[in-house]
């Protein structure tokens, strides 16, 4: 993923064909795995906790709509134009920032499902199951896209 051009309200990104497939698969897999997180139970909560629950619901709704907007944009042949060897993907009005949020949310959700491991991992590493490997893949792949996106956005 590489920034091709940018002005005040739009950015055009080059996505190789395989990158586009991986990005779509990543978002889809991350959304499916997000369902593995237990829902918050608001029974018997105080006012502050209830406000927290409302905030969580608002953030969840924001993340769902953001994720859908990005996926729709990626599938749209007008905004994601296929060329030789890749796609020119146009993001407008802060959608590059939304993509950044989506990728970060995927990483954080996967990290939570992995039990919130610390920065320095224990040695030996705990045994991992198949689902854990999927979450490790989500974390790593999302961070690759995130780094490429940041590199483009932070370039002067």
């Amino acid at each position, binding site marked *: 993923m590489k920034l091709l051009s940018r002005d005040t309200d739009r950015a055009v990104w080059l996505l190789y064909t395989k990158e586009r497939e991986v990005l779509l698969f990543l978002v889809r897999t991350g959304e499916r795995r997000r369902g593995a997180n237990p829902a918050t139970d608001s029974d018997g909560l105080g006012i502050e906790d209830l406000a927290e629950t409302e905030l969580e619901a608002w*953030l969840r709704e*924001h993340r769902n709509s953001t994720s859908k907007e990005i996926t729709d944009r990626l599938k749209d042949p007008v905004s994601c134009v296929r060329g030789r060897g890749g796609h020119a993907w146009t993001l407008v009005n802060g959608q590059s920032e*939304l993509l950044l949020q989506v990728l*970060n949310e995927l990483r*954080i959700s996967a990290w939570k499902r992995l039990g919130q491991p610390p*920065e320095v991992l224990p040695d030996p590493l705990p045994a991992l199951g198949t689902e854990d490997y999927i979450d490790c893949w989500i974390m790593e792949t999302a961070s690759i896209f995130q*780094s490429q996106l940041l590199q483009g956005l932070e370039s002067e």
Partner: protein
Amino acid sequence: MSSTTELPTPAVEDVTDPKEIHDRGYVVLCWDDPVNLMPYVTHVFRQVFGWDRERAEKHMREVHEEGKSVLVQENFEKAEFYVHELQKYSLTATLEPSE
């Protein structure tokens, strides 16, 4: 809420109006976590507060090394707005009454 709401780009300015100073009774804090990438945190600060890279990196390092950083002092509504913006980026942000 529309997910395409434009992100704010206000710079935090010095305030000379005494009433405004009085109203700015809340601080926005960002807390360290072991998962968010440092360049990402810097970028988010620049985006949300309109800071230059130097200022954003200073606060990012403070979060990373000291566990938290006081980002801005504002009235309740504005502080709450900033907290929500930071939370949209999955940063751990809270607001507290200033001392």
